[in-house]
């Protein structure tokens, strides 16, 4: 790990030493080791392998202050229309909870660690490792609140939980916030979570989401990263999955100037079904990074990963996907595919699949394709009378919606399909590129 001496200034008034001193013992120790680790490793530089495609100079140049105030942000209409349990975080603090939660669903603020129930103490900080990840270390040292959600043993809430995470940025001075989320799905429970990241102005969003899925439990988790155009989004989703559990993950990334969406999953039991699919849509000078790590630790695990990107203008996409199959993880079935569609000459993508297999009886495949729209597809549509611009839009829409269709829960899938269509209408339908 390369150490960069220009680390992100810590936020005044949220001195980790002070935060640690004010924390109960269980959290104080965690915060102290996190800040020590952050000080030791610093922010990644260009020679840090894990970050070589995503440069952080623009982030390092900022001197952020704590995020304050409430941004004037509405959820995308299709997401707002979802029948769901709304939980809101503003600047990392819990701001909205439903008046009543259904049987078996519990949500508590993380703002008062001394009052944290046992199920929070047992899990918080135990899933998202910060040893090699400075942003997770920073979040762990500095989060001031957040939310912990528990789906009790065997519970199956009828509607999805919609977690809105918003941040108020500054006009010139950037803000920073470290939203912290813990989701515990207990044995046999099944739930759907929709996480939406949004904000306004200039800011750094550094959220960490820890998810534990118990034995035989299921979580459908769709993430919409729709941060503001001047935002830097550096998120970590860390998962620990127990035997026979199912996680159906999806990310749709449309926002931010620069975003890294990182997902690390430990498949810690047998017969786990894990999927992490997604779409990133980039225009102008946007930078989207999707980085995933799948750790098959036990036998009979299945993982499915399909990530598609559409890039226009000078947008850039990065996909890094690592699958580790440990010696004990026989009969692992892993599929990974990364596709990117470049709609302009200036768009660029870096794809880095990595398989590390130590078991001998496994089935793992991976692939990556980068290309433009197929000329013969475009011609086929035009030869039936469909104008070039409309033909392009139809093909791009079909390409994107094929991935969105992997979201299992129908209302969530429809909402995300609408958000993706809206982006394509604004950035592709009007494109005047010749397609040649």
């Amino acid at each position, binding site marked *: 790990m390369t150490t960069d001496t220009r680390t992100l200034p810590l936020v005044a008034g949220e001195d980790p030493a002070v935060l640690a001193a004010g924390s109960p013992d269980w959290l104080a120790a965690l915060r102290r080791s996190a800040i020590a680790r952050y000080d030791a490793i610093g922010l990644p530089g260009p020679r840090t392998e894990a970050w070589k495609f995503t440069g952080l100079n623009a982030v390092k140049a900022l001197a952020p202050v704590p995020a304050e105030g409430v941004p004037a942000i509405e959820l995308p209409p299709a997401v707002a229309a979802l029948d769901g349990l709304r939980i809101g975080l503003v600047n990392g603090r819990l701001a909205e909870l439903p008046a009543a939660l259904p049987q078996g669903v519990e949500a508590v603020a993380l703002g008062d660690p001394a009052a944290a129930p046992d199920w929070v103490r047992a899990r918080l900080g135990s899933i998202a490792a910060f040893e090699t990840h400075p942003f997770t270390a920073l979040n762990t040292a500095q989060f001031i609140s957040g939310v912990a959600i528990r789906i009790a043993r065997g519970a199956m809430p009828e509607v999805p939980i919609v977690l809105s995470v918003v941040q108020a940025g500054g006009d010139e001075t950037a803000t920073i916030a470290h939203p912290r989320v813990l989701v515990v799905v207990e044995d046999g429970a099944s739930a759907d979570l929709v996480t939406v990241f949004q904000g306004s102005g200039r800011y750094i969003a550094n959220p960490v989401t820890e998810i534990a899925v118990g034995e035989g439990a299921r979580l459908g988790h769709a993430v919409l990263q729709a941060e503001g155009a001047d935002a830097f989004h550096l998120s970590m989703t860390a998962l620990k999955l127990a035997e026979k559990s199912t996680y159906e993950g999806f990310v749709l990334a449309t926002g931010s100037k620069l975003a890294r969406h990182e997902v690390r999953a430990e498949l810690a039991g047998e017969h786990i079904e894990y999927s992490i699919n997604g779409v990133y849509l980039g225009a102008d000078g946007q930078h989207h990074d999707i980085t995933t790590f799948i750790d098959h630790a036990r036998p009979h695990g299945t993982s499915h990963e399909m990530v598609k990107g559409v890039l226009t203008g000078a947008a850039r996409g990065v996909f890094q996907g690592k699958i580790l199959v440990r010696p004990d993880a026989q009969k692992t079935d892993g599929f990974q595919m990364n596709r990117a569609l470049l709609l302009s000459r200036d768009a660029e993508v870096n794809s880095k699949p990595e398989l590390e297999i130590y078991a001998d009886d496994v089935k793992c495949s991976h692939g990556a394709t980068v290309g433009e729209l*197929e*000329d*013969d*597809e475009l*011609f*086929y*549509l*035009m*030869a*039936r*009378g*469909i*104008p*070039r611009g*409309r*033909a392009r839009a*139809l*093909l791009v*829409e*079909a*390409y994107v*919606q*094929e991935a969105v269709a992997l979201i299992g829960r129908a209302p969530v899938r429809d909402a995300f399909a609408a958000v993706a269509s809206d982006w394509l209408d604004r950035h592709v339908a009007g494109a005047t590129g010749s397609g*040649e």
Partner: protein
Amino acid sequence: MALLEIEGLHVEVEGKEILKGIDLVIEPGEVHAIMGPNGSGKSTLSYVLSGRDGYDVTAGRIRFDGRDLLEMEADERAVAGIFLAFQYPVELPGVSGMTFLKEAVNARRKAAGEGEIDAMAFLKMVRAKAKTLGITDEMLKRAVNVGFSGGEKKRNEILHMAVLEPKLCVLDETDSGLDIDALKVVSDGVNALRDPARSMLVITHYQRLLNHIQPDKVHVLARGKIRRTGGKELALELEQKGYADFVEAA
């Protein structure tokens, strides 16, 4: 007035001359067959007519329905009434057959200053035409040509033709890869569209398709030029003698 007039057409692909002076006139209602050995330029002619990129017209002109065809984009030609039944129909993952056809019909209506077609009426019309071609509702819902057999793809091309009602149908090797049953279904579909106002250009290597779709004129295309023109008896002659005379001639 002739529907299609091709005069002295020279076409290059990647700097190589493929068509070396084609003259062809098709009147409304006529069915012309173009036969020829592989590599003679048959498919090139179909792509030049339909406006595919990458085919450089270095000399000559094409008039279609009184308009300069070479000035028009592929979609404009289609809207004006040219239809190409592809030799290799393209798969469109994620685009359903119905969506595709509706887009194509509405593009025509828009060009004619009309509103979008009524969805129910459209569905009914497409289903009726699909049924005569043995295309099921399930196939219409699926992505265009994805997972279709060779015969299904060719039938789907004829369905497009039936729905779009073009003035000039260009059939590029529509019989290739078909079994005899599929050939009959496709031929019946084509024959059902024969009309005094509609012309057809049937491109084929073999005479067998012309047993089912009877041409008014047969042209032999070889080495980039039409070498001979005759009636349907010419096709039978070619079937017996092959293309050796045309390939070897200096």
